């Protein structure tokens, strides 16, 4: 077969291979094509949307993490301490709400976050720290403006320190703001607050406000805040207290070490210095400061807390249970919110010191006062000599 013949033969044969569609088939096929096209478009749009969402998430997540880190309250408790340790200082930066640490692991009676007061920073760059103890939330404002709310369901006491100024709430909503010339402005929206400073005290009622001395020269006013939230404080003015309140405990320690007289013989200074020592891993150096509070300020409301903290340091970190038991006994004043926990710990400390008689006495005291207390079971075991 020649080339042209062959070609013509194949082409002739191929011409018989034809395909056609009826009107219905054609219509149906067109509809299918359009349906496939639309499905493809939908798929593509969905993929695009998913891609955009993933991309946005990928961009937003690190940003929000960064902002959270910079702004939200971040509790940085010393790693050697349980966050629920009484007296543990947490550094709180600009954020919306503090959170009470879960205390079950340490045996402190259950502290639910909804029982904690609510602290809302009102200006960017506001810096405050929070100490969560049994029955009391202690805030220390370094700079800025914070609104405090303590609803009726909040059982904890709320104590706010600004320099040497102490504000105690009596079921309330109030705002604390640092001002120029080491002044602090307090406005009460609801309830009452009691304000105490080294040379006096006052009570503010609903709808009233007042300006009080902070007692510290270097309290930064709100007006010193930059737009970006940073604080306009020259380095020389950053004494160890400011450093400590900003969570810069190591620098605060160096400052104290360079001149120990910087720690004044005031309860606030002594407690803060003790915290600096504890949080920098020097619990033995916290002891003298706490001891001074316990011995030299018998009438101060913070004495039981100091004694309790000292007891914990002595018991858990320095292995001196007998001395710790004495401190817990001081902390166990009936009026103290720490009393329940302190008595339980006293019983435990005496037991660890080998003084079972005193341990049983403390245990019985606990069971008498708090038969249904959070530590009742463990204390009962101590009373029976089978901890």
């Amino acid at each position, binding site marked *: 077969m020649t*080339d042209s013949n062959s070609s013509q033969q194949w*082409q002739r044969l*191929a011409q*018989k291979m034809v*395909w056609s569609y009826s009107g219905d088939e054609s219509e149906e*096929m067109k509809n299918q094509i359009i349906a496939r096209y639309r499905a493809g478009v939908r798929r593509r749009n969905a993929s695009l949307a998913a891609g955009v969402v993933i991309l946005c998430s990928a961009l937003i997540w690190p940003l929000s993490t960064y902002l959270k880190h910079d702004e939200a309250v971040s509790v940085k408790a010393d790693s050697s301490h349980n966050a629920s340790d009484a007296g543990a200082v947490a550094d709180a930066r600009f954020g919306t709400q503090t959170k009470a640490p879960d205390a079950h692991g340490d045996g402190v009676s259950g502290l639910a976050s909804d029982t904690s007061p609510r602290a809302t920073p009102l200006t960017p760059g506001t810096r405050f720290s929070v100490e969560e103890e049994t029955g009391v939330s202690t805030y220390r404002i370094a700079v800025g403006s914070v609104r405090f709310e303590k609803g009726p369901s909040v059982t904890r006491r709320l104590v706010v320190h600004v320099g040497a100024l102490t504000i105690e709430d009596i079921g309330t909503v109030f705002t604390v703001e640092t001002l120029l010339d080491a002044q602090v402005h307090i406005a009460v929206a609801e309830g009452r607050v009691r304000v105490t400073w080294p040379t006096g005290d006052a009570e503010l009622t609903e709808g009233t406000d007042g300006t009080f001395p902070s007692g510290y020269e270097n309290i930064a006013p709100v007006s010193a805040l930059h737009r970006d939230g940073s604080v306009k404080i020259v380095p020389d003015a950053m004494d160890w207290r400011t450093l400590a309140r900003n969570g810069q405990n190591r620098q605060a320690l160096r400052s104290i070490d360079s001149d120990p007289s910087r720690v004044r013989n005031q309860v606030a200074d002594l407690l803060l210095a003790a915290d600096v020592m504890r949080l920098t891993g020097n619990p033995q150096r916290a002891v003298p400061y706490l001891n001074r509070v316990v011995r030299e300020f018998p009438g101060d409301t913070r004495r039981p807390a100091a004694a309790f903290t000292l007891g914990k340091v002595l018991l858990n970190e320095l292995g001196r249970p007998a001395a710790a038991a004495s401190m817990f006994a001081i902390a166990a004043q009936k009026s103290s919110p720490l009393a329940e926990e302190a008595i339980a710990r006293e019983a435990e400390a005496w037991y660890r010191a080998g003084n079972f008689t005193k341990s049983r006495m403390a245990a019985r005291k606990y069971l008498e006062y708090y038969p249904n207390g959070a530590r009742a079971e463990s204390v009962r075991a101590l009373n029976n000599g089978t901890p």
Partner: protein
Amino acid sequence: MKRHPTGQPRVHLRAVSSDSGDSCPDFDTLFERFSPYVASVALRLMGEDESVDDLVQDVFLDCYRQINCLRNLEHARRWLVKVTVRKASKRLRRRKLVQFLHLSDAGSREPSVPLVTADERAQLVMLYGLLERMPLKDRLAWSLRYLEGAEISEVAYACNCSLATAKRRIHAAQKMIKGEDHD
């Protein structure tokens, strides 16, 4: 300017559409006019009717997507053939792979053409048996040239190759068919 393998400068289809004087055809027109043609080309390229409908649908789906790029009916026809060749090529390659993996019976396929005699049917079976054994690109070029009766330039355009390559492929396929014929 990037040049097409056929030697023609590749220009944006939209840019020349106004010069051609023809308007862009709508999809219904294209489908009514070319669906039997595309189906027949697909049947001749594939050698079996099982996948013709799917292939036609795939081709016209692409057409629906790119309808705005088609200048006129002649351009649309050439473009549709090109897409048909590409889609057929994919399917044939897949079929070969399936046969290679023994996942399908190669001998079960034969063109179902109702209008041919038994002798012609036997010739078709023999032809597609030959085509199955030759390289895919050669097969497609030869099929377009001798079964479809396309010009060499059209073959080159549809196979996306140069004229020389198209001729070489057709020649190689023809040589193989002639050799088998002589045997």
